[in-house]
């Protein structure tokens, strides 16, 4: 004897599946998506580190030296390295998605995707070079 069907309100006999909490572990595409969502935590971490650095700078040379010493400890180094990887992942996927959100049309024709993504990379490189020059010239 089979168990009787489960009756739900209004539509007694429809079967509804619950989405598993671990739905993102089912495929690489979903996992990649969740990792990308998680990158926001690491972006926030970098922002906090920068704010703490500015605060240390404001408090004077001794406090700044202390902060730098803390940064050289193993845990912050590992954390920074992992965060850098996540932030790079975030940046690259973001730039690659840009053409999807911005279909630019010139003369009635849609511009090929690389032409939308490329300026992002060029700007990224240019700003990075500028920052590196500002920091390293002295």
């Amino acid at each position: 004897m089979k168990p009787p069907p489960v009756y739900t309100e209004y539509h007694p006999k429809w079967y509804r599946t619950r989405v598993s909490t671990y739905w993102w572990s089912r495929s690489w595409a979903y996992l990649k998506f969740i990792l990308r969502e998680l990158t926001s935590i690491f972006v926030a971490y970098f922002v906090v580190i920068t704010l703490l650095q500015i605060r240390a700078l404001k408090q004077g040379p001794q406090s700044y030296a202390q902060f730098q010493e803390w940064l050289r400890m193993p845990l912050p180094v590992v954390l920074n390295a992992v965060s850098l990887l996540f932030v790079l992942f975030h940046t690259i996927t973001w730039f690659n998605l840009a053409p999807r959100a911005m279909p630019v049309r010139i003369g009635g024709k849609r511009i090929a995707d690389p032409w939308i993504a490329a300026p992002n990379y060029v700007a990224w490189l240019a700003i990075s070079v500028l920052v590196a020059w500002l920091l390293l010239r002295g």
Partner: protein
Amino acid sequence: MTETMTLQVARYRPEQESEPTFDSFEVPFRKDWVILDALNYIKDKLDGSLSYRWSCRMGVCGSCGMMVNGEPKLTCATFLSHYLPGPVRVEPLQYFPVVRDLVIEMTDFLVKLKSVKPWIVRQQEKPFSEGEYLQTPDQLDTYKQFSMCINCMLCYAACPVYGLDPHFIGPAAIALAQRYNMDSRDQGSAERLDILSQHEGIWGCTFVGECTKACPKNVDPAGAIQQYKLTSAKEWFKSFLLPWSAK
């Protein structure tokens, strides 16, 4: 080469079972057979009680969408040979309530689709004597991709956001709203904005991007949603900075 292939087909007979089970069927393997051919073989020769939807068997009607080995597919366009040596698991489209076997309940999608007014909205129709609303090939080209949608709902079955939040209006409905927003003959974009700009509208989308991969017609619903996010944000800034200008 294998002579037969095993299909594991999800069965749900609400008068008998409280949850779906799987039945295994041996079907002849033929190079030119799609999953739908195998299902039709089962219904004709092995078990006439198997229920599923299909109609055109050429990727136009959008009726035969099912989960094939866990991925949303049009079963009329998915070859058995792709899954050699088998077995192939066929289930109803996920995230929708199952009515019977492979048949899902689609009212939710139809209601959402209607809510975005997927038709040409005119503030004032011009009289017949003035003729048709003309459109250049370039104007047609701006929305043509989105107009290819066949309402097969594969994008809903691919979208974890829809699975987790059934109120999300979903990929196809937004892509079709965008199809009419971009149509040069349409004047209804302001009416659609209120529905699409809700939390359950475009902002529910977290850009998983799977809808676009699942789409058998290359509609790119994920792209449509991101483009509309840009439009909606621009409209918000406009109404914020220029509150006196009419929407």
